[in-house]
């Protein structure tokens, strides 16, 4: 069971209190009627879902109830960055590089 830092409650809580709601930073198009069928299908269904560093939406559903975003390494399950809804998406490549460096240092 993961331990997740809620940026609103400012504390770590067990995964039980959270739900993951898939890839982050996919905004609902401002004017859906102007979207082509392909664009709309992409908005509805197409997700990166890759192995590795991934920005996800989480909700502290059994806590403060807030949605927030988190960058997680789906291989090690480590959270690299947690930030509030509305804040910009971090540079994932830079995060990944820093993460790789710090894990290399941690190895004893």
């Amino acid at each position, binding site marked *: *069971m993961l331990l997740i830092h809620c940026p609103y409650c400012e504390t770590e809580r067990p995964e039980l209190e959270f739900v993951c709601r898939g890839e982050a930073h996919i905004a609902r198009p401002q004017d*859906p009627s102007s979207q082509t*069928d392909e664009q*709309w*299908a992409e908005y*509805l269904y197409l997700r990166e879902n890759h192995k590795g560093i991934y920005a996800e939406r989480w909700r502290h559903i059994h806590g403060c109830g807030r*949605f927030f975003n988190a960058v997680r390494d789906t291989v090690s*399950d480590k959270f690299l960055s947690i930030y509030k*809804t*509305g804040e910009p998406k971090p540079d994932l490549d830079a995060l990944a590089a820093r993460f790789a460096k710090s894990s290399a240092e941690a190895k004893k």
Partner: protein
Amino acid sequence: MSQPFRLEKGGRIDRNASVTFSFDGEELEGYQGDTLASALLANGQHLVGRSFKYHRPRGIVTAGSEEPNALVSIHRKGDQTPNIRATQVELYEGLEATSQNRFPSLGFDVGAINDILSPLFPAGFYYKTFMWPKSFWDRVYEPIIRSAAGLGYAPKNPDHDRYANTYAHCDVLVIGSGPAGLAAALSAAESGARVILCDEQAEFGGSLLSETTSTIDGLAPAEWIVKTVTTLAGMDNVTLLPRTTAFGYFAQNFVSLAERVTEHLAQPDAKLPRERLWQVRAKEVVIAAGSIERPMVFPENDRPGIMHAEAGRTYLNRYGVKVGDKVLVATACDSAWQAAFDLADAGTEIAAIADLRPNPPESLVSIAKARGIRVETACSVTGTSGRKRVSKALLGRISESGSVSAAGEVACDAILMSAGWTPTVSTYSQSRGKVVWNEEAQAFLPGVHVQNERSAGTCQGVFGLDAVLKDGYAAGEDAAKAATGKTGKVTYSIGSGDEMISGTFMGEIPHDRDASRVKAFVDYQNDVTAKDVKLAVREGMHSIEHIKRYTTTGMATDQGRLSNINALAIASKALDKPLTAVGLTTFRQPYTPTTFGTFAGQSRGQFFDPVRKTPSHDWAVDRGAEFEDVGQWKRAWFFPQDNEDMHAAVARECKIAREKVGLFDASTLGKIEVVGPDAAEFLERMYTNPWKKLGVGRCRYGLMLNDAGFIIDDGVVGRIAEDRFHVTTTTGGAAHVFATMEDYLQTEWPELDVWITSTTEQYAVAAIQGPLAREVIAPFIEGIDLSAEAFSHMSVATGTFCGVPCRLFRISFTGELGFEVNVPRRHGEMVWKTLAAEVEKRGGVFYGTETMHVLRAEKGYIIVGQETDGTVTPDDCGMNWAIGKKKHDFVGKRGLARPDLVAENRKQLVGLLTTDPKVVLEEGAQVTTSANPAKGTPADGHVTSSYHSATLGRSIALAMVKNGRALEGETLYVPMPEGSIPVKITGTVFFDKEGERLNG
């Protein structure tokens, strides 16, 4: 004589507390402090089971949780628990144990024929043999294999014991309480950290419990244990958990422990839980799991009486039991020599020490000589004999070239073996750390650390008592500092004892026998031999993961703690690749088998899942209601009277509700209060319908889609004030709709000034439906004009009911004149009883969910989740009227324009009437255009709802049918095993098509 192999003195058992127990029905004696294994050995009983595949007689091999052979069933209070390791069972008065996997008896087992037929059972046997015919697998092969090969029998009765769960947090969790673990716990605790120390054994101390030759701070190990444990027990920041196995290490230092609370008690208090699951979140973990001895893979190494040297020493020093009268010690490691010396000093005859090494340490040889023990060097055991107990060993001499020649035989009744020590890296491996081969230690040791843990002591290759203690203290201090940032005064102890760990051997012991005929076991529990591993390699399995699965080596309950290294060495030799190139299988949770009861904890029976009840529940129980589960809710299903069956009860309820009046509990419907200046704008975006022009005091049916365009929920929404709406949802959709609304509000439209609050349980809701509905509520309502003109269909108003605040809706899910009375929940029971009395007075009925379903189906009202399945659009249901045509956007609008959603030939909701009015279709049945469709023809639709309508005197059904609306009046078919049922396609409204009754 009772307990013929018990020594006069020695051991940690309580000789004043004699304990009677039974094994396979035979009454035996042991002492308090014994394990079942030590007590059996004290009675000379080595044979304790039959092996899994070949049914070979098997004896006790170890003294710990890694025991592969001594699996027994324990019987208590009419129940039995199978596959318990006798080495972990603490003896108690009246303990009843039986052996497993034997028929008719342990001594004579017909399954042993498998041993003679063993050439027929090579590695991969099941894969090769039971391939054909496929249909034989379920009915013939599997049942026979399962009954012939296997362990104990699963218990058949429900488990009557209680189980507990607790969540715990600490700064430092120490796993294992040998010298390293105790030292780590002490230094972490003295540093001020919150410490949990757990050990799978009944007593703390680990290897020190059977140690007699060393001292710590000048104290005997046993005295030092008492001193240390007493200190720890006196500290507020320490939790001591004996009999507690850390069985799983999960992400972010989440470690699960299984505590055996009452297993060791003769008369456990029924109030105590049998086992407790500890779900521990530790800031730092110290793994002090120790190491276990490695068996020697020589021919016939599995006879009862052949065991680990350290186990023999443990039985001697800890339990005062000698494992035999004439013991052969076969070793490649120094430590077994100490076992020989201890046994010799206790009066056991040592037949010989046979050391594989040509030059074992001279110091050991001279001690042996001084005791008159025969020593054979460069010597291997090449075979054994003895049916139920080893009686003889063949020795072989290993030449410098590696060839082996016969070197005579030795009579013995026990063989103690040691091929060296394997650090226990299971727990570390579970933490996702990767082990690395350490050439110096000749072992796999913790390598990369992934979590906040560190190993201490022999499990990370540190040997020698003083070194182990130092490693433990340092680990505890380091962990405490990492967790709390603090260090404290730490008392170090100094250990002294001989280094006894040099010497190791991996793989098959060289011998001069016919390798194609002899069985040298690698994995005892799964009956895997060296030959099987080599065969697997010959047949193309080159990865250890493949070899493991093909032969099942390492797949026993010890997960290969005993067998992995030997199997790896045999495979590496067969492949002619270095050990490290073959790889090591991953150790996974659980460390030892863990009961289902432990996982379930209190979550069973009435507490398996929350059982949610409405305020009318107890009343409905009194009235004899049958209930159905709707999600976690218990809802009254129907109210049978005078032994009515469901059909009769529902027919009566339906009829009277339409003729007079019915009372229905609608409390479970989800309710959301949507409040704020932008409330109407928000609903405009969330629902298909228009809301801005809805007047205060009016209601509207709302339909909710997802952005794909499919129906996900519906409900009535009332406007309480300009900026306040009372939204209702389906019972099952309440949580999801609330979460979906929050999602859009927080992440898509944070600028909207609107907030939502769940009020599902703020209100109890009574629905009163039928021509007399107004008369039923009128006497109790104040502050609302109930006349048809002032309070027309789809109105909402606030007033009081029996003096308590009330939100009254005039709405209908039956097609009748209807009201829904919403009152604060704690008034619900009073209001319900008041209404029930009034309804009875007027000849009305109480009805449940079944009648509600029939009444709404007669009116063609959909139920989300019954008519819809997540792929249904409003148009599919004939509900385009619910879509606000002028709205620029709402959730689902763009989705509705997707090519597949506007395509021809979509399934549409229609009514079905069977030609025979008595036939009630099956819900879910297929609908076809042909009476006898050819096999493989896709169905044209399916029945979504089907009932007998008492009002109409016939059956009715709703169905989703391809192009259904265009087929009205045509006959289609519902093919059933008994033949096709002709059905006529109709509109969806079966009763009161004009809707006049609503206006009553």
